[in-house]
């Protein structure tokens, strides 16, 4: 059974550009969450989607947006990239809406903004 898959694995973008990151959750999981992990820090929550609806949003600017598709896969979009957006972007899937069960993380997308 496939785990959480993210694409691409690495990405280099220029300041001001737009980026789209993709995530496919574990089969049967309806919840997808996005986290940003800056080097040397813990993951920071960006969004949670459950049953295609946004259920939580972290303290990130409106340049960050996301959506979940009918097959429960998800996209994270970041507009007007800044150097500070350089980070590892992690997608996590889980069974339910709440954080009462373990989160399964994908391998992440390493975004570098130059």
């Amino acid at each position, binding site marked *: 059974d496939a785990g959480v898959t993210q694409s691409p694995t690495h990405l280099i973008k220029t300041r001001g550009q737009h980026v789209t990151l993709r995530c496919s959750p574990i089969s049967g999981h309806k919840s997808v*969450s996005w*986290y940003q992990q800056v080097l040397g*820090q*813990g*993951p*920071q*929550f960006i969004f*949670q989607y*459950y049953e295609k609806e946004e*259920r*939580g949003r*972290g303290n990130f600017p409106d340049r960050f947006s996301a959506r979940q598709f009918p097959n429960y896969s998800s996209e994270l979009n970041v507009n007007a990239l800044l150097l500070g957006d350089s980070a590892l972007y*992690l997608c996590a899937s889980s069974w339910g*809406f*709440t*954080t*009462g*069960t*373990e*989160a*399964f*993380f*994908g*391998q*992440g997308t390493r975004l570098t903004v130059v």
Partner: protein
Amino acid sequence: GQQVMQIPQYQHVQEGEDFTTYCNSSTTLSNIQWYKQRPGGHPVFLIQLVKSGEVKKQKRLTFQFGEAKKNSSLHITATQTTDVGTYFCAGPNGSRLTFGEGTQLTVNP
């Protein structure tokens, strides 16, 4: 908002020595989760503690949840080089997990 703090930030040990990382939350937690992230990897779930005062063991790893459900610890007995990585605790906050900053463990063979 909820804050989760971990100490120490770094720990260097000789293989065979013990290791402990501590986690404290600014709020009472319904549960606490521990994750391990190997260098260049992604966080991998280790365990979830739910009950006040709960202690769980996984081979050489011992996890504790404080009586007040605001603190937790992870103890590794007789570290091995395979234990290298960053250990994170995470507390639920609504639909999100709030992660600590992690403790980076290095093990010298």
